[in-house]
């Protein structure tokens, strides 16, 4: 099953465009708050405008009406109603995943997202980066943590955010109704490239999701041309394996994102570069220009042929 069409349209990171029931409740709450606040604002400004009208003599005011009525009773009534209503609509706290939930581990790094599944069919752990795929209609339990600094997982279409604090494992329950794709972004300032730490969420129909996960669980696609052979060799010679894992080629390091299926990813560099023709080569050769301060150095000393081979091989890893 191929990935959804690219590029993504705007509004896919909007609080006002929910993709699941939890997010939709917050959206309708938001509209209530916006409309309510607007009405109260207009009312108070009308009073202010009225107070400026000129006329002869002083106008008596009843302090009780203004201070007790307007200043105490009115907000007390409105706020009590608001508190009761929002408490009723605040989702309960779940200590552990509900039965039937899919469990995904997300670890935030500076500045990329490590996403881990366990494929129940093979028992194998599946790792990818910067993308979260979900089955539509099924609850998903995200375990969130960070080994370095505080990050925050936020996909507005799925609901509220949760901070990822070193030393803690927090969680978020999400559920999407229909297949589709959305975007999220780290929402806690985490250093130089906090602005370029985006995450894409793709929801599939359940059968498609199973197929996708099975595909991700397979090891890297073997090269079937000389160019790709050269590219795979370059991956090892250039020591990319010092940080990156490609299952069945290099398995030593988890410092950087898992690249076993990087060719099928929507974006490179945590949502920074659209993964289209030429993007891979550009990312590898000019990393520090695209995302200054990223922990990956630019490979400026690779000759054009080697770069082309490496890029072709990486693109082949679908």
């Amino acid at each position, binding site marked *: 099953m191929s990935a959804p069409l690219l590029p993504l349209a705007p509004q896919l990171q909007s609080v*006002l465009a929910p993709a699941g029931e939890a997010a939709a409740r917050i959206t309708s*709450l938001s509209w209530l708050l916006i409309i309510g606040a607007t009405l109260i604002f207009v009312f108070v400004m009308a009073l*202010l405008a009225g*107070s400026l009208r000129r006329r002869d003599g002083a106008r008596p005011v009843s302090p009780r009406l203004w201070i007790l009525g307007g200043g105490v009773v009115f907000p007390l009534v409105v706020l009590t109603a608001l508190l009761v209503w929002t408490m009723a609509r605040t989702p309960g706290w779940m200590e552990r995943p509900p039965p039937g939930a899919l469990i995904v581990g997300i670890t935030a790094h500076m500045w990329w997202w490590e996403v881990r599944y366990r494929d129940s069919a093979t028992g194998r752990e599946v790792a990818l980066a910067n993308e979260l795929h979900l089955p539509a209609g099924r609850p998903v339990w995200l375990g969130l943590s960070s080994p370095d600094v505080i990050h925050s997982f936020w996909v507005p279409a799925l609901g509220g955010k949760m901070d990822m*604090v*070193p030393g803690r494992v927090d969680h978020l329950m999400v559920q999407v109704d229909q297949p589709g794709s959305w975007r999220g972004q780290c929402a806690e300032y985490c250093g130089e490239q906090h*602005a370029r730490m985006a995450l894409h969420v793709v929801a599939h129909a359940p059968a498609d999701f199973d197929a996708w996960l099975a595909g991700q669980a397979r090891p890297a696609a073997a090269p079937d041309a000389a160019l790709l052979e050269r590219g795979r060799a370059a991956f090892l010679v250039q020591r990319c394996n010092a940080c990156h894992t490609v299952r069945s080629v290099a398995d030593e390091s988890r410092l950087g994102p898992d690249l076993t299926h990087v060719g099928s990813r929507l974006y490179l560099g945590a949502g920074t570069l659209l993964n289209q023709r030429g993007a891979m080569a550009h990312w590898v050769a000019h990393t520090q220009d695209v995302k200054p301060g990223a922990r990956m150095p630019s490979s400026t000393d690779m000759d054009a042929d080697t770069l082309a081979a490496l890029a072709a091989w990486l693109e082949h890893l679908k």
Partner: protein
Amino acid sequence: MTFHTADGLPSSLPRPPGEVERLERAWEAPKGWRLLSAVNNSQIGVFYIATALLFFVLAGVLGLMMRAQLALPDNTLLSAQTYNQVFTMHGTVMMFLFAVPVVEAIAVYLLPGMLGARDLPFPRLSAYAFWAYAIGGIAFFCTIFFGVSPDGGWFMYPPLTGKEHSPGLGADFWLLGIGFIEISAIAGAIELIIGILFTRAPGMTLSRMPVYAWAMLVSAFMIVFAFPAIIAGTLLLELERAFDWPFFIAARGGDPVLWQHLFWFFGHPEVYIIFLPAAGMVSMMVPAMARTPLVGHRAIVVALVAVGFISFALWAHHMFTAGLSRHAMLFVSAASFAVAIPSAVQVFSWIATFWRGRVQMTAPTLFLLGFHFIFVLGGLTGIMVAVLPFDWQVHDTYFIVAHLHYVLIGGMVFPMFAGLYYWAPVFNGHRLSERCARWVFGLMFGGFNLAFFPMHISGLLGMPRRVYTYAGDLGWNLLNLLSSLGSFILALGVLLFFIDAARVFRKKIDHDNPWNAPTLEWLPQEDYGMRSIPQIASREPLWDRPTLAAEVVAGRHWLPGTHSGGRETLVTSWRDAVPQHLLVLPGDSWWPFIAAAGTAGFFLLLTVAQVVLAFACGITAIVAIVAWLWQTDQPPHAATAEVADGIFLPVGARGMASHSWWAMIILLCVDATVFASLVFAHVHVSMAAEVCPPPGASLPGAFWPLASGALLLAGSAAMLGAQALPARGRRAPVWALVLLAVLCVLATFGLDGRGQQLAGLSPTADAWSATVAAMLAWQGFHVAVLLIMGLYVCARAWSGKLRSDARASLDNTALLWHYVTVQGLAAMGVIHLMPLFG
């Protein structure tokens, strides 16, 4: 109060010849470069306001740089590194170097006149506080020119700001630089509290006190209890960075969220510390513009106090997404709603006052209307973000950026501009241009809304905070462009204001009362404040007694001259303002300036690891402070003084009647709150640990704390003994007892240290040990201070300067001594008893 004169005023005519000339000489401002040694609030207040406005402009320019970068998607005007320093400095300078200082500065300048005092009660302390702030603040700002500014955000969350992820100097500049600027704010707060409670004009009972004074009183108390939390936090983070004591490092038992608790316990009250003085100013200007007394004066006072208390319960609403307990978050959400009620009381009172009166559409009025519009909108978005699920979406997005600017710019900056227009005649005699003001207001109001309203929308469309750029296909482009355009229009308005001010303020004339305002700061003022301190009988003295100004200038009221030939004001009782004693105030001095430069030098040079130079500055500061203190605590020039016809008051006071004693008490409240914050850190870390003490750490046996406690008590007993002696006229053994107390307290520190050393305390091993060490170090710091102060008191006794009528050095030192005893006992109690509850 009945007076002995024929017409019932405190002093009769004719006044003795030369009386007003003696008054002028005593208060004369120094000229030329000697102005640096001025301590009068009339000079310090102006310097202070000007410096705060300078930082407003500088931080504003940083804001414009941010908006220029964000005007277009994927922009390359500023690099990520530069942008991150710029946004950190924008927030830090605005919050720490502009917002709080400017409201304190306005109070320093305006309050004494408004209360009927000639100056603040500790003029050299206000000078010190100002210069420390000015020198430290400018040095801190200059880091941006060297590229060594902090870049962790104004809130500086670890682990990002720990040594591992922020190895450079920037974070240290923030911690040390901002840390001691807080100290300056606290000194100002203590002074304001004492000034408001002790030096009001006779007859100005609490219920007749202007609302602005109430607002400053509440804000000052909030500073006393909120700022210590960030002092403790900055202390801990700097100890972690410098010595690897892992308070916030999870791998060794620390917790990054501990910082957030400490920071926001300060940070939330801070925004009310910024807003309440502005609300107080609004409460002064609205009645003057509407030409009718304030509706709901008492309700507003109650509302101010209510905000002061409630705001301390809200800090966790900045942490709604940090994974804290659901019950706690619901409580905080409800409290965040509750704080809207006293704010609503104030808003409705102001509108009711406008409603009742006839509003003149002047420059101050325009800004007051702008304030209402912007602040009410910001307050409503505040209610929105107090709703938990809504905050889970909009926290850390541009919706919050919009909210915070609406409440801060609406709630403080607009009232500040209203105040600048309103009180300009008090400063200079001139009114600023009304015509120009309409342009200034239009540009500022229009520019502000254009800049910040779209941010509500971009936040809801998913734009997070603190991003140096954004992708162009998310629907945020037009919104950001509009925001950037608006910010430049806002800046243009501010520029226009300063151009007009520079033009108008060039020449000073005597000021009139152009708004026909009712309160005392509008009396004719010179360097000495008002010629005589008025007897007050109402809330609106200038309305209810139209002859007051003439009477005061003629010297018909209290203290029309100077008794000692120096600077003086009256101390009155805190509730009913009955005159108690004559307070003789110090004149201009170089010591505060030198001490401030030394203090600033010490902290800044330590940051760049110039240890020798740093200690040289530190020693200079200590020498200057001792020299300055040595000049205080003199016996009165006379036992009593005639302050009105036939009315004699004592000169100065001792013990609990002395204003310096109460200042010490308030300082001890600050101290205790810092200590409580360190205890909180220890408890927080202990509760997170599975076993207390954690494996590898242990506590000393019972002997050590018991012996140390006994010695602390012995030291306090010795001090009590020393205090009893001067009253009996026996001075020789005083220094012996004080010396004994010093030895006791040094011994306790030795015992504490030795006990922990034998137990193998290793602060770098884990966070629990680090918090124990932090409390020990805090106690040790106090021991060092007691050493210096004890020796100082001995010196006073030896030299014969310690007498029964000049004993503040002993009494105030004894207060600190007893506090350190209690603190030491409490620290030991917490450390040794906590594991029993684990």
